[in-house]
């Protein structure tokens, strides 16, 4: 990958996953073949102080395949970790699960909490194991904090806050279980992310006994890398998006559109299946009624009736599974692409700000040609953003592929199981139907 120089806002250097292939990231889970995580190409022309953040980001040994990296983002944190940790790509040292939903009835409100269990060997955590309870609004708070503190990264989506559909019971087993799975997925995605998993808010979320006290503090005890770099961009307009990000944007647009269509189709199928089930429920018993009129035919007719009953049960299982397991994941990904598009827009703004400032400098001919620190800071911000975003996008693409592969295979599986159950039912009554009855 070539290193672009300063002052070329339109073709910023970016690294692809390939450059990291020599050194697999220790935190990469078995699901991702490629390596995610930001890595910047060396920009030796940059003369920026090495400690913009509070952490000392200088590397113990200067030369690594990654080269000297710009310290202005948490991606350099990543580089530090690459050297310290085990080089085996399969090693994970942070495991999070969401389980055991419980209903709490208080005078003011009723709500559900979930147990969040953490097992880790990381030094950032005081204990190897944690088990605390959290409710939805805590997850929501965490997500907002992550968006604030890691604006250059793609934050996974949460299940929808409010339920739009007519008469859905917030406390029904199915709804709670669907939500639990989504929250579990949310935390796992963060835990698997090489940068987000080290976020301070995430740590507190997983460990603190009293989260509310922490929330009230407003500022984190340790200010985070990203937070101190304020990404307050005042509505700078970008002339044009670089090709690769434009492609990303277009991809996300089409992707979300197609998912929306699939969601509608899946819903329609479920609706048709439910209506089919309603008719089947009336159909089966009629055979039984008929059986009551007959002598020799009574058993065969009863058999058919029971068989149809079994098919009804199998169909109900199918529609429940599709509603609980299939649709929510689709919706999650639609939400994901929405939030990703927002991150793209933020990136555009950061680049826009940089370009504007650069232009302003260029216009002031009387100034010394030296580029002021502020503008260089901007450029740096842009480069980091681009790198982080690119890396996250790669990682996201991979995870998406795995997730959809699993989702669609699961859908096919459920249908296969449905037909297998029905097949068993019908095959089992053939001998009953063929049996010669003794005249009663």
């Amino acid at each position, binding site marked *: 990958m070539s290193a672009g120089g300063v002052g070329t806002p339109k073709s910023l250097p970016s690294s692809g996953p390939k450059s990291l292939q020599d050194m697999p990231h220790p935190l990469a889970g078995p699901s991702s073949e490629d390596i995610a995580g930001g890595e910047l190409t060396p920009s030796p022309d940059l003369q920026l102080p090495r400690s913009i953040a509070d952490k000392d980001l200088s590397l113990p040994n200067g030369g690594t395949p990654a080269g000297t990296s710009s310290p202005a983002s948490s991606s350099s944190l990543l580089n530090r970790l690459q050297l310290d940790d085990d080089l085996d790509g399969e090693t994970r040292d942070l495991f999070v699960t969401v389980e055991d939903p419980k209903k709490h009835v208080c005078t003011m409100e009723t709500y559900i909490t979930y147990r969040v269990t953490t097992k880790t060997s990381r030094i950032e955590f005081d204990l190897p194991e944690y088990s605390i309870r959290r409710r939805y609004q805590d997850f929501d708070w965490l997500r907002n904090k992550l968006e604030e503190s890691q604006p250059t990264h793609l934050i996974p989506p949460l299940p929808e806050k409010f339920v739009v559909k007519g008469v859905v019971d917030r406390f029904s087993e199915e709804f709670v279980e669907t939500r639990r799975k989504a929250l579990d997925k949310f935390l796992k995605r963060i835990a698997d992310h090489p940068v987000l998993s080290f976020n301070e808010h995430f740590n507190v979320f997983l460990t603190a006994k009293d989260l509310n006290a922490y929330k009230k503090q407003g500022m984190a005890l340790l200010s985070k890398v990203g937070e101190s770099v304020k990404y307050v961009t005042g509505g700078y307009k970008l002339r044009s998006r670089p090709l690769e990000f434009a492609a990303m944007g277009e991809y996300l647009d089409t992707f979300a559109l197609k998912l929306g269509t699939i969601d509608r189709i899946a819903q329609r199928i479920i609706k048709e299946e439910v209506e089919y089930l309603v008719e089947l429920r009336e159909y089966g018993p009629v055979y039984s009624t008929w059986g009551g009129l007959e002598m020799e*035919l009574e058993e065969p007719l009863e058999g058919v009736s029971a068989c149809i009953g079994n098919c009804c049960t199998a169909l109900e299982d199918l529609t429940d599974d599709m509603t609980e397991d299939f649709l929510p994941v689709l919706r999650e990904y639609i939400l994901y692409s929405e939030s990703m598009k927002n991150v793209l827009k933020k990136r555009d703004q950061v680049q826009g700000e940089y370009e504007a400032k650069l232009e302003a400098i260029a216009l002031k001919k009387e100034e010394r040609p030296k580029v002021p620190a502020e503008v260089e800071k901007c450029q740096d911000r842009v480069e980091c953003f681009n790198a982080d975003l690119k890396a996250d996008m790669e990682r996201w693409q991979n995870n998406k592929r795995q997730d*959809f*592969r699993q989702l669609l295979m699961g859908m096919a599986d459920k249908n296969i199981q449905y037909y297998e159950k029905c097949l068993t039912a*019908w095959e089992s009554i053939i001998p009953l139907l063929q049996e010669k009855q003794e005249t009663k």
Partner: protein
Amino acid sequence: MSSCLKYVSCRQHMTTEGNFWSKKIEISVSEAEKRTGRNAMNMQETYTAYLIETRSVEPSDGQSVLTDSLWRRYSEFELLRNYLLVFYPHIVVPPLPEKRAEFVWHKLSADNMDPDFVERRRIGLENFLLRVASHSVLSEDKIFYLFLTQENNWKETVNETGFQLKADSRLKALNATFRVKNPDKRFTELKHYGDELQSVISHLLRVRARVADRLYGVYKVHGNYGRVFSEWSAIEKEMGDGLQSAGHHMDVYAASIDDILEEEEHYADQLKEYLFYAEALRAVCRKHELMQYDLEMAAQDLASKKQQCEELATGTVRTFSLKGMTSKLFGQETPEQREARIKVLEEQISEGEEQLKCKNLEGREFVKAAWADIERFKEQKNHDLKEALISYAVMQISMCKKGIQVWTNAKECFSKM
């Protein structure tokens, strides 16, 4: 597809060795043709004609030779059946396929001219002829023989039998049902069974049509996946191929329902046959009630005549009669008049007793013959319906296997994503 295979059981009973055929025969309704002609009011009409072919089978080598071939339309079948109903009231006469398409689910046409409907009707008419031909009593009927062999003037021949005049009026039959005092219990139960059977099969056919409708919807919506997977695959790199090929399987799945439901219509037709058979059963029961009522009326009439006679002879008036009143008021009749009256009555009584004996005998014969045919019918019904249920189960099994196949293929495509 050979229509003969549809009613396998019938074929087995198909030997007909009555007066008219020297050898075993095979009957088929092999073609249907649209025709235009002029009806009774000299107006142009369109109708369908069916080709009936009769073959005689050589017992030595099983070779069949075409002996007769003629065209008939549905109304002629109806005429034949109505004739059989009148002349064989003790027989459960096989029914015709429905006149108009009923129990239709939305994709199925209710139009009588629709080719699918015509095809199913052709099979139903063939089945009707096979059932009649394999019935030990009905197969020997001359009019039936002529139906298969005499194309021209057959209608006139049937009408000449005067069967329309012999037919019992519906009103008379209804009257009998309500007023009969001592019908044979078995017939009462059978009629009740016929009513219930009609009701339950109607219900079953209605719900089945709705089930078919819904199932059609489920399959067809899956076709939409084909299109969207194709569109989605266009923006994907590694996932594209898997998605595209999976989409193709979804199209296959969606298309498969047409054949599945077409096959199921044959099952519905088998059920319909027995729905209409239920009506034939009830007709036999009604005939019994009518005969029994007739008998009861005749016996009642005889009893009252006997009483009248006795009263006249002994001079005692036990019952109130207008004659008695008028004779009281206007003077009694002469002994000669009374004698004359007694003589007339005695003649009537004698006739009446003969008639009653006859009616009794007829009634007993009817019950015996009808019950024999009913037993035959019951066995046929149990056999046929079991076969129908088995074939339905086989259809369902085939549908499940196809479903498993398609989704397994799709799963494999997804695994390659």
